[in-house]
């Protein structure tokens, strides 16, 4: 994980910002497009 973070820090600012935007968008997509069920809450 530390290596990943170091690698992330080395990326240009524009790449970091766009990557974060894509990750947030994909996360929202996954939470909304998928329908896994966990008992008593969301999967």
């Amino acid at each position, binding site marked *: 994980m530390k290596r990943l973070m170091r690698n992330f820090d080395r*990326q240009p600012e524009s790449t970091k910002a766009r990557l974060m935007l894509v990750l947030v968008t994909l996360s929202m997509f996954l939470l909304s497009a998928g329908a896994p*069920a966990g*008992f008593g809450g969301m999967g």
Partner: protein
Amino acid sequence: MILLVAIVVGISATWMRARYTNTRLTIPELEWMWLVPIAFVPQWLAFYFQPTSTSISTTAASAGLITSQLLLLAFAWANRKVPGFWALGLGLGLNLLVIVLNGGLMPISPETVRELAPNAPSAAWQAGERLGTTKDIVLPANATRLWWLSDRFVLPDWFSYRVAFSIGDIFVGVGAILVLWRMGE
């Protein structure tokens, strides 16, 4: 929430790949990104935000779910040329299909619910009713249209996290990993 594991797996693998091959990440230009937060709002209210998820009616929850997934389908279609989006769109489409054909929520059989929560009190869920505040409705398999697309898979017992998921969910998870993996090329 379990689908977010796909993000962690995808980005970790991509980063290792980029490091190994000494290439820079290529972030895809996504179209209509603004649609995704708009699509997320009704689901957040219906399933995630406790004050509203516990008080919203089943009809409103299913209307919110279908509206939200239609918006996401438009987003997936707009980005169909981005590698991996075919799987995201296919998974979403399969989930939406079985949801629409079964009254607006994702069907789950009583047997699967018992596998999920073998010790739950009998009053905790009822056939024909929404399962807690989830996107699921408990329906017997023989009363479910396209049963094979419903939430019918559960993780093996050795996983402490209990969750049921569908074929569509598998495609959605694989799609997210593919989108992230192709960024390392």
